[in-house]
């Protein structure tokens, strides 16, 4: 029918879909006729448009299909729905506890799932990311196992030449090393310096391999010339708003001898990658000292490789070992280093998939702020536990209230309901409840998301725009509905009509042993979570209050002082003249994280070719350092201005003295290639996380002075900082002062630990709330059943105590059993967890007692409310009706 009208098909189909059969022919005919006329008069487009408009205008009651679902199924579903709603309405308290507890559990689950989803999706967006690996060093000596990612400078080049399975290899230096880390940043056109962090060095191949997208500039050549600089989009917008930054000249730290040309603007890194830079400096043409790029001495380069699709893992690892022997061991032997044999014996390699870097690096010594797969597991378990607790509430309440539904079940069976229908009915009911709880739960999660984000230091959002989110939620509604409803529905549908209609079924007694075990499970889980929360919090407090070996309070660290150049000493002296300033020291080595570090190999002088070196930090400090930081010299003396020979003196910490094996170290000479006299021993202090053991450390006099630490008096901190700022401004009018307090930096170091504690505690509390909601409803139900009994007992002379005891003893028994179950489990779990810490607390009886007591008090308070209310009622009121 070529000449029949061709209005838009979808609109026509829509019309046929909603329009009833009585009306369709007439209306459709009219529409086609109009369409034809319009098409002739005004053209196809307008006719189409009008047709659609007309179709929509037909959507009115007269035209709609009449609901004529006569099938029994539909009617039954309608009936189930109605009965479910009536039941909910009649028992408002029970329904709200069921739904409320469920919603809380679901909200917690949603938040945790979002957190887990985010954590599990790090580093997934690189082209062929499944073939990209980070090369990891292993040290496999028994008792001294170690992993770290830093490689020597020439390593990558050798890999490129000698391992054909490697498609591409690139290096990055993500450390505070030379210009890596933080710098003062100034465009050649500007006068003011700005402090910027997150600088790294990298190869051109590094960008090629990971496929970072560029907004401007050519990603293929951006790092292929020396003295270039790639910056992130957000930094480009900050420094060059509205201007194309390509080709602009940049000075770092006022160094006009070494200008940088911006060669590329990279898309700002997303939050779900383990990389954390805003500026990339090229490694092209860089040599940090003479011969550095070809020397196998020093490991500062994290090296990433992309393997060919057909590459065999084992063979690549074997070839890496060959490279170790061919180059590194040869180098060590040439230097006469005694470690060479150990290297052959113990040193190995590992290829870590780039996707695993975020969550599977806790045993690898890199400087990134990693997630931890153990935490992921822990949260996953907590989420499932909370959901289970909520489901158990649901199951317990449904079966407890079964007496109220027993007659209904009996009657339905009498009039012909099969068991399957009844199961269907109760499942429908629980899915309906699950739907309501989910809606409420999503609402709760939505409202609490900002707080959760702050807690977890994330920026999570609801992924409404992803395809799977809504279907996933609906599937969960069904799943949870079934999970919670399956037992009650089988239980309720099993009643025999004759018995229930005669009233033989005793009130909810049939399931009491199961009910009991579920209550035990709920409370055991809650107790374990409380024990967990108490232990986690105590451990955190222990860490934060541990004796550090230095005094972190009232120390302000002024940064970027290297630009003072030779005026740094006058500035420091002026500072010390301020009345509120107790002392000041210029260095950039501080015992908080993210400061400069310098690892050296140290020998006792004369034994370089005999002993294995002691690895030690070498900190370059000044005369005032130890005093300003409040450290203690336990043997020998501090550096002194009077002693000219102190320029070759060294102070070591106790750990280092032990490791060097000196009985009396004062006056002995040690060397890292340059021999020095030991003049003092400083008491061990924590300079990395207090969760790690203290490593050897040495201090020498030196001029590394990016920062000045100022010890100020505790009074009038604001006034003190104002006068320090004034002084700074008189020295450096073009560079705003930048300082931070050491205790704040210290607190930030343990932010993660603290967050974990708080999040864990919140979820533990939530679990207890849910469990108590269930207990409350159960006790209320029991009291309701026994109202007459209570009345009669009271009439016969029972006291308040008698009654309370007889009503609560059953619950107390359950709770006691749950404590007995929970104590060993909680104790063992937390003991294992504390093994992660070098300095951990003990899980004492006291902790168990506190947790047990908390649960006891909370649960007694919960059941008391209803019991006390029922006991105080005048017996006449409960008994008069019969």
């Amino acid at each position, binding site marked *: 029918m070529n000449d029949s009208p061709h209005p838009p098909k979808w609109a026509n189909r829509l019309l046929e879909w909603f329009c009833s059969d009585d009306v369709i022919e*007439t209306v459709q*005919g009219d529409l*086609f006729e109009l369409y034809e006329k319009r098409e002739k008069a005004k053209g196809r487009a307008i006719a189409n448009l009008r047709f659609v408009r*007309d179709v929509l205008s037909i959507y009115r009651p007269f035209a709609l299909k009449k609901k004529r679902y006569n099938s029994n199924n539909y009617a039954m579903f309608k009936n189930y729905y109605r009965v479910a709603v009536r039941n909910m309405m009649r028992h408002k308290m029970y329904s709200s506890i069921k739904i409320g507890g469920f919603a809380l559990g679901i909200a917690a689950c949603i938040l945790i799932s979002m957190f887990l989803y985010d954590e599990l999706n790090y580093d997934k967006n690189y082209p062929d990311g499944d073939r990209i690996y980070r090369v990891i060093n292993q040290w496999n000596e028994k008792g001294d196992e170690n992993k770290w990612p830093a490689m020597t400078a020439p390593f990558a080049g050798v890999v490129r030449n000698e391992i054909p399975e490697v498609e591409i290899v690139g290096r990055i230096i993500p450390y505070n090393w030379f210009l890596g880390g933080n710098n003062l940043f100034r465009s050649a056109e500007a006068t003011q310096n700005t402090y910027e962090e997150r600088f790294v060095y990298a190869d051109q191949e590094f960008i090629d391999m990971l496929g970072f997208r560029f907004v401007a500039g050519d990603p293929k050549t951006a790092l292929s010339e020396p003295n270039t600089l790639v910056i992130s989009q957000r930094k480009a917008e900050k420094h060059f708003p509205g201007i194309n930054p390509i080709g602009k000249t940049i000075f770092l730290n006022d160094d006009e001898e070494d200008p940088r040309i911006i060669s590329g603007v990279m898309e700002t890194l997303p939050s779900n990658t383990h990389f954390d830079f805003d500026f990339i400096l090229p490694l092209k043409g860089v040599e940090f000292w003479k011969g550095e790029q070809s020397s196998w001495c020093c490991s500062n380069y994290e090296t990433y490789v992309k393997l060919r699709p057909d590459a065999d893992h084992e063979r690549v690892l074997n070839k890496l070992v060959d490279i170790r022997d061919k180059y590194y061991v040869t180098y060590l032997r040439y230097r006469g280093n005694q470690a060479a044999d150990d290297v052959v014996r113990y040193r190995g390699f590992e290829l870590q998939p780039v996707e695993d870097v975020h969550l599977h690096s806790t045993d690898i010594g890199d400087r990134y702020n990693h997630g931890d797969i153990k935490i992921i597991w822990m949260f996953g378990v907590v989420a499932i536990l909370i959901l289970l607790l909520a489901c158990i509430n649901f199951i317990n309440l449904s079966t407890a209230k079964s007496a109220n539904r027993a007659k209904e079940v009996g009657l339905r069976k009498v009039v012909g309901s099969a068991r399957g229908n009844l199961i269907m009915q109760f499942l429908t009911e629980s899915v309906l409840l699950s739907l309501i709880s989910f809606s409420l739960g999503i609402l709760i999660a939505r409202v609490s998301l900002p707080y959760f984000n702050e807690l977890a230091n994330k920026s999570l959002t609801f992924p409404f725009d992803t395809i799977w989110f809504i279907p996933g939620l609906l599937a969960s509604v069904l799943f949870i509905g079934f999970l919670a409803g399956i037992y009650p529905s089988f239980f309720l549908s099993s009643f025999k009509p004759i018995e229930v209609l005669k009233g033989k079924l005793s009130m909810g007694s049939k399931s009491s042993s199961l009910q009991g075990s579920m209550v035990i499970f709920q409370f055991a889980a809650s107790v374990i979570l409380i024990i967990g929360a108490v232990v986690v919090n105590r451990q955190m407090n222990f860490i934060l209050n541990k004796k550090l070996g230095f005094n972190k309070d009232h120390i302000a660290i002024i940064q970027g002082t290297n630009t003072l150049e030779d005026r740094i000493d006058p500035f420091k002296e002026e500072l010390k003249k301020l009345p509120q300033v107790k002392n000041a020291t210029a260095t950039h080595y501080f015992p908080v994280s993210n400061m400069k570090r310098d690892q050296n190999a140290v020998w006792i002088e004369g034994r370089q070719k005999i002993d294995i070196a002691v690895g030690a930090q070498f900190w370059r400090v000044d005369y005032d350092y130890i005093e300003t930081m409040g450290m203690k010299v336990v043997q020998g003396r501090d550096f002194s201005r009077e002693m000219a020979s102190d320029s070759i003196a060294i102070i070591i910490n106790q750990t280092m003295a032990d490791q060097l094996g000196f009985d009396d170290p004062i006056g002995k000479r040690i060397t890292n290639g340059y021999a020095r006299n030991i003049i003092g021993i400083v008491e061990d202090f924590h300079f990395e996380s207090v969760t790690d053991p203290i490593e050897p450390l040495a201090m020498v006099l030196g001029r590394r002075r990016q920062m000045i630490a100022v010890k100020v008096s505790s009074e009038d901190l604001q006034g003190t900082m104002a006068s320090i700022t004034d002084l700074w401004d008189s020295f450096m009018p073009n560079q705003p002062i930048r300082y931070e307090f050491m205790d704040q930096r210290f607190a930030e170091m343990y932010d993660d630990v603290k967050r974990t504690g708080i999040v864990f505690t919140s979820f533990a509390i939530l679990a207890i709330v849910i469990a108590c909601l269930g207990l409350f409803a159960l006790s209320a139900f029991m009291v309701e059943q026994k109202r007459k009994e209570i009345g009669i007992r009271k009439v016969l002379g029972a006291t308040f105590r008698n009654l309370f005891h007889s009503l609560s003893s059953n619950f107390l028994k359950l709770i006691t059993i749950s404590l007995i179950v929970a104590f060993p489990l909680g104790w063992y779990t937390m003991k294992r967890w504390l093994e992660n810490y070098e300095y951990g607390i003990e899980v004492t009886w006291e902790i168990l007692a506190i947790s047990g007591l908390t649960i006891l008090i909370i649960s007694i308070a919960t059941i008391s409310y209803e019991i006390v209310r029922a006991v105080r009622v005048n017996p006449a009121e409960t008994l008069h009706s019969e």
Partner: protein
Amino acid sequence: MKLGAFEELVLLTVGALKDDAYGVTIKEMLEKHTGKRPSIGALHSALYRLEEKGYVTSSDGGATRERGGRRKKFYQLSGSGQKMLVEANELRMRFAKQIPGLNLSAE
């Protein structure tokens, strides 16, 4: 029973079109005489109500090619419909006569 303003118009049109009153012709006539463009949905809705109230009756007509083979539904003014129109008109006239200076006369 009441008659809405639009319903009354439709009823008048059905009467005026005699044997040729179906969706499209009614719509076109309304457009021509009132200058307004009722939507086809509103029109059918009104016709449906008028039929329910018994003011019009309907009969199926023959199919034509331009309607894609769909039959027309022709409407006729029923007895009660006619009576309703007369009543409505009388009511209007009674009021109109009481307005001074308003001179209404049938054409």
